[in-house]
């Protein structure tokens, strides 16, 4: 079973719907015990980085950290991916998972923020998450903060400079865009994770 972690960071129906469509059993949950037992964990999330502190307060952070330690595949989406980094300018007091180094920063003033709409991926190197996805593929973004390029960046996107659109390290995956809202390309990516 795939646990879709609910920490009151927006609407998770779309993520569940996409996983359902791909034919994998999944459940939206805010119960740490369910997360601990899950075969895979997805942390979606929209809105403010500060909302990730809910994960600390509810015991979900410990459950997720434990799952990651046991090599449970993990997929962070949007704010869920930013949470995999050390921190974000958006909420300097909130502490990310730190599985990727660095701080998420606001878009520079030269470009409109939020970055909303369909933009292209520049796929870099080998990636299990992006198998079957070519450079130039369009995916749907909506965010005002962006993660830096790191050694684990498997796709970059250019908007006011390059940022990490997808990251990957071993069994840990992240996407800044919304695979559940990115048409066939998005379903391919979500399917790659679900089939791991």
């Amino acid at each position, binding site marked *: 079973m795939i646990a879709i972690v609910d920490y*009151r*960071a*927006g*609407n998770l*129906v*779309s993520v569940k*719907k*996409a996983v359902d*469509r791909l034919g994998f059993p999944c459940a939206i949950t805010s119960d740490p015990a369910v997360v601990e037992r899950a075969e895979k964990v997805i942390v979606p999330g*929209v*809105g*403010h980085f500060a909302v990730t502190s809910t994960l600390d307060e509810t015991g979900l952070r410990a459950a997720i950290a434990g799952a990651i330690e046991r090599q449970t595949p993990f997929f962070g989406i949007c704010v869920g991916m930013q949470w995999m980094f050390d921190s974000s300018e958006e909420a300097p007091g909130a502490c990310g998972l730190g599985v990727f180094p660095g701080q998420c920063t606001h878009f520079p003033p030269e470009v*409109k*923020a*939020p*970055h*909303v*709409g*369909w*933009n*292209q991926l520049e796929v870099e190197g080998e990636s299990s998450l992006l198998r079957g996805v070519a450079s130039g593929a*369009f995916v*749907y973004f*909506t*965010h005002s903060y962006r993660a830096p390029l790191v050694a684990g960046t498997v796709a970059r996107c*250019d*908007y006011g400079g390059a940022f990490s659109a997808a990251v990957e390290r071993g069994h840990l995956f992240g996407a800044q865009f919304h695979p*559940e*809202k*990115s*048409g*066939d390309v*998005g*379903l391919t990516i979500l399917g790659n994770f679900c089939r791991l």
Partner: protein
Amino acid sequence: MLTKRIIACLDVDAGRVVKGVRFLDLRDAGDPAELAAAHSRAGADEIVLLDISATHQNRATLLDAVRRAARELFVPFTVGGGIRSLEDAAAVFDAGADKISINSAALADPTLITRIGERYGSQAVIVAVDAKRLPDGNGARWEVRSAGGRKPTGRDALEWVREAESRGAGEFLLTSMDRDGTGIGFDCELTAAVVGATSIPVIASGGAGGAQHFVTVFREGRADAALAASIFHFGLNSVAELKQELRAAGIPVRWPC
């Protein structure tokens, strides 16, 4: 490159699509779920479902249509019409919408924008603005209308979008009441004025009569997206055809899609 979005809009009354129903190869051209899926396949970057009946008794019918449409959609899906409270919005989100659009209710109580945004994120809150040009005085000005464009509010459109943005709106759906239904083109002056007054995305609506009008509203109006409500009434068969024309004109669009 960030592309310009083409958004297909379905006007729904009592659970049936009442505008833009001419579409090839559909078993039931009036079914919102089937039309939404068809538009998505044809390249629409987003789908908007607008409940134009918005009466209390039709709410269950609408939610059923949203649920069925959402099942087939893996692109952003917005639902508007008749959302007056956080509870109304929650019901629509639970049925599978990604964003909601509010208009009169936001004018009556702007805190609604903030309350929905705090629960679902600003990106999920589209504030629809119906603007009507005021008689020429010192430069162009537009007044906001409510109740489907029928009711003058006395509010300046640019002042209202600034307030709505500060209260947490994620995007604007801007309709020119002067151009809506005319087919003579978008009001690019209005669109550019609103784009200049805010930093969030602006979806232009009202007046499209051909592909060239989209080119103009993206270039001169600086719109981030445009609503293709009656695209099938002006000789284009699909969003794909419109996008091909935009590409030929050098407008960045998601293609292939």
